[in-house]
């Protein structure tokens, strides 16, 4: 039986993980490779690396990191953050990334999704969408790290991305991100019902019950979180055992 997936997300800047990470037994908690290996060992089903480097050296450092991670890691990982061209994606895949996620560039020029899917296959093209809720406009998609409102309806955009050839959607609710009040069940469920590709839910995870909800009530295929894993608030293995006991298929 296909299991639901638990995905820790690592923010990377200049080749190092940022945001606090507390892990016993890691000599250097900023080393993305050591952290990735630790998560893999604890039972993470996949990893996501989000590169937030803004310098000109971005491309080179990121490719080095991807190579180092791929050399160590025997589970799949996705790389995202400022990826805008076919050449960017090709370089990342050749370095060993399993999937590449695109966000602002896809909204800026949606044909990019078609081009990437044709060239590399849908299986490695993830479209990341950052959505925010307002009472007036409902759920709309934002770009440039959440600073720019595209005024596009989130469900409509996700449907278009899937039709253009995305193999997976990474849906982050900016309205929930960082709150630890739980995933955005309504928009996650609406997107999961609207598309025929897997949906990764992100933003708001604060407890094990939140994962149960997003899998059982919103039909997400995977749950992504950062800080609760980095700070050891929830262990990946205990989370997966809990979800399994709740009747959600897990790889244990």
């Amino acid at each position, binding site marked *: 039986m296909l*299991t639901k997936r638990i995905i820790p997300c690592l923010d990377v800047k200049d080749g190092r993980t940022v945001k606090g990470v507390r892990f016993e037994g890691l000599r250097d908690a900023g080393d993305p490779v050591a952290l990735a290996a630790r998560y893999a060992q604890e039972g993470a089903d996949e990893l996501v690396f989000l590169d937030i480097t803004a310098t000109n050296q971005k491309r080179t450092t990121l490719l080095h990191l991807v190579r180092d991670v791929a050399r160590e890691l025997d589970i799949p990982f996705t790389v995202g953050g400022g990826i805008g061209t076919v050449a960017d994606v090709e370089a990342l895949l050749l370095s060993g990334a399993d999937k590449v996620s695109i966000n602002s560039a896809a909204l800026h020029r949606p044909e990019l999704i078609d081009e990437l899917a044709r060239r590399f*296959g849908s*299986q490695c093209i993830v479209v990341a969408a950052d959505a925010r809720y307002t009472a007036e406009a409902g759920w709309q998609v934002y770009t440039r790290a959440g600073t720019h409102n595209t005024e596009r309806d989130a469900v409509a955009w996700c449907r278009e991305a899937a039709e253009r050839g995305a193999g997976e959607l990474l849906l982050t609710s900016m309205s929930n991100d960082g709150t630890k009040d739980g995933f955005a069940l309504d928009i996650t469920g609406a997107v999961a019902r609207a598309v025929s590709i897997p949906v990764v839910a992100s933003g708001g995870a604060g407890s094990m019950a939140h994962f149960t909800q997003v899998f059982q009530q919103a039909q997400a295929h995977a749950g992504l979180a950062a800080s609760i894993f980095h700070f050891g608030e929830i262990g990946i293995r205990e989370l997966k055992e809990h979800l399994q006991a709740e009747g959600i298929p897990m790889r244990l």
Partner: protein
Amino acid sequence: MKIAVIDYKGGNVQSVLFALERLGVQATLTADPEVIRRADKILFPGEGEAASAMRELRAQGLDQVLPTLTQPFLGICLGMQLLGTHSEENDTSMLGILPFEVKRFAAAAEFKVPHMGWNTLQQLRSPLFAGLREQDFVYFVHSYYAPVGEYTIAEAAYPMPFSAAVQHHNFYAVQFHTEKSGPVGTRILDNFLKL
């Protein structure tokens, strides 16, 4: 032992090379028919789309070379599908080393396509799976599948059973990513190297 990994611009070969490296094996990435013929073991990874992969194989003459190989051969993911006769993916004629026809999963509410993630193996029947147990997990990413047939050596279900692995003589192939399937995948690769 000389290990050749076939290079036909078929996707994530780097992960396969790294997985072999973790097993202490140095492999050669090559499209040279002579190097391939002389290898002790051959890996044939693949990702992406069937028609363009076949075009690339034909351009390099590998469509003629691969069916004549006699040493242990392991196709991975698209590298498994290409061993069949035909794929529904862009109506593609393929290598025809195994008699299966590749079909597309029908998407349904709970069964999204691609079939992406960790799924269990059943009906294991090959030395390739020595040391594994029924229901062990491996990682799949694919939209097309080979039906179950007499060539099937492992099954998975989504929701209907399909071929997770196939074999014909020296040609072994797996639909999942051995190089991304944690310790279970590593064991399968190691088993292949020992065939």
